């Protein structure tokens, strides 16, 4: 059965690695729902967070292929209940719509979003949450005419009390 999995991979920070990682997915016809790369908590080590919708068998194989890459230290995959994940969304609406009533402000407050910037022309709203939540807010705001909407990829931390990579690095020594 297909479901959402979040793959986290820790790697050396080297040129071209992103390419090597994505090739693994394209070759196997796996669509990447979202992908973010950032510095991890350990200096010099990057963290990939990749969300895919596949079967358990597929995610397991793909994760092994990622870990096989020379520059990758370790790769894990998680189901949604094993992680805490969030994404951030930005919405741009015309300021006149904001001013014409307090409906938008109400929406912002109720959904735990916030207003980042107000100019005479436009207002930028930010919301962090699950994809479903940022999507819901989009639909509500769009009733007033969202002129731009963008969403980051998912970032995630595991619920596991141990830090998987730190454990692993200790093991290496």
């Amino acid at each position, binding site marked *: 059965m297909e479901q959402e999995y979040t793959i986290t991979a820790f*790697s*050396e920070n*080297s*040129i*071209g690695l992103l*390419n*090597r990682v994505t*090739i693994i997915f394209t*070759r196997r016809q796996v669509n990447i729902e979202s992908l973010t790369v950032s510095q991890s908590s350990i200096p*010099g080590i990057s963290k990939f967070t990749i969300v895919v919708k596949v079967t358990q068998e597929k995610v*397991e*194989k793909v994760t*092994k*292929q990622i*870990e*096989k890459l*020379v*520059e*990758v*230290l370790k790769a894990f995959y998680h189901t949604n209940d094993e992680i805490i994940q969030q994404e951030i969304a930005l919405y741009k609406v015309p300021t006149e719509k904001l001013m014409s009533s307090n409906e938008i402000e109400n929406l912002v407050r109720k959904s735990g979003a916030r207003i980042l910037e107000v100019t005479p022309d436009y207002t930028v709203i930010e919301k962090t949450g699950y994809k479903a939540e940022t999507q819901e807010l989009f639909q509500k705001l769009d009733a007033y005419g969202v002129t731009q909407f963008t969403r980051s990829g998912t970032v995630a931390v595991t619920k596991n009390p141990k830090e998987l990579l730190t454990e692993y690095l200790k093991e*290496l020594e």
Partner: protein
Amino acid sequence: MEQKETQKPASIKVTGSQSVIKSLIEEGVEIMFGYPGGQIMPIYDALYDFTDKINHVLVRHEQGAAHAAQGYARATGKVGVAMATSGPGATNLITGIADAMLDSTPLVCITGQVGAMLLGTDAFQETDVIGISMPVTKWNVQVTKAEDIAPAIAKAFYIARTGRPGPVLVDITKNAQFAECDFQYKKCEGIRSYIPVPKVDVNKIDQAAKIINEAKKPYILFGQGVILGSAEKEFRAFVEKSGIPAAWTLLGNSSLPTSHPLNVGMLGMHGNYGPNIKCNECDVLIAIGMRFDDRVTGDVKRFAKQAKVIHIEIDPAEIDKNVKTEVAVLGDVKESLPLLTERIKTNNHEAWIGEFKKCMDIEYNQVIKKDIHPEKEGMTMGEVIRRITDKTKGDAILVTDVGQHQMIATRYFKFNKTRSCITSGGLGTMGFGLPASIGAKMGAPDREVILVVGDGGLQMTIQEMGTIFQTGAAVKIVLLNNNFLGMVRQWQQMFFEKRYSSVELINPDFITIAKGYSIEGQKVTSRTNIDNAIDTMLNHNGPYLLEVVVEKEGNVFPMVPAGCSVSEIRLE
């Protein structure tokens, strides 16, 4: 990237190009295969001063350089080295690199690249070889500074040869070749993010031993892992103590002598009858250093479903990739096999082995007899191969190209020694044979190297006859000429209603072509002359072309048609 380093020796000033050559010498490279061009000229210039240390073989096409390096690596166990210029030189290497990737052959390929300032400008002969080679290399890197060259080459050799071997590519920009740097070579001894050999888990060995000790019909499938792990002796000890029949994949061939009583034959689409059908009858299947390629499993949904599978393997990504395992023993076979051998009972499985013998009798009567003792007029590939292997007493290295002749040669050639069967398995690359045979001969000059090649495949890299001419590499070329792209024709006959679409070849006079390169040869068209001709070839001091005209429409059997179960193997 962090790298564990050994102690620093004193450094000297060199150019980047000298650094390349000195690094190769430090890695023990004695032979390399390549072709010069604009963006690698400084390195060729540096090479000019080291011709006493490194024998650079000038091939006729960069694909030939890659395949020759593969042949060399497969025959010797050392890392093969190929070198080419940027752009077309680099892209010409790709087929060989891809072949080495699928067949786990250690290669270091060095390519020249335009100067760093020109990268990304579509400069003359600039191609993104890093991008192009990414999916077909174990690792690759572009170097733009002279001081980074030696560490990159050290890492390249380390990655190519350790763990599951594979091809790596080092792309060096021209400015880095010209610039000066300090040279001090440190061999790479480890990379933080890369664990080439997983640790053997003794619990897994115990579990595997228990299953093996309780098995009634255990069956070993072995692949190239035995050879790559230099574990032939350990493997043989395991086979002999367990008394378990063992069958080989195309690439595992020759790691156990053909004549060994427990060697029951070949797996795969054109493998032997018993070894194929018994996959679906055994109760325990012990896979050693092999990866359950679809050419071995047939329809994988109907492969060995009844068996408990033990997989002994170095690459964690191979576990459960195609076939689900009961127990996976990760690690180096050279280490895990003795541990397993210690824990198993001495056993023999006479009745079970008897079943393989019965299958062999059936195959002999329906297939082999007709192949090697034909009663028809036309010569068969099988009879030619059998005569050659008998005359060379199983001591020769066999190199093949791809097609019918490849399957017939690997089925009927006999081997006493390991690393003696060099063939393109995973990629099935026509044109592999001739250059690979040159590399094999240069790596094993004291051994007889027999190339078996088809009339199609020979013409894919026939220009490498020039390399033979120039180097004198004494390869014995056996051309099995059926004037067809035989393997494709066979499929068209069997699965496309004999619609022979673009498979007939109007061929040149191969003997005359060889003569142009001063390669002696003769063409044999009838059985009466074949023995003499083979003797002449084997007694000839130097390269030789023996062209044998074989029946036009011979077919290779047994055959597991694509998509069928191994149980549905056809004998005719």
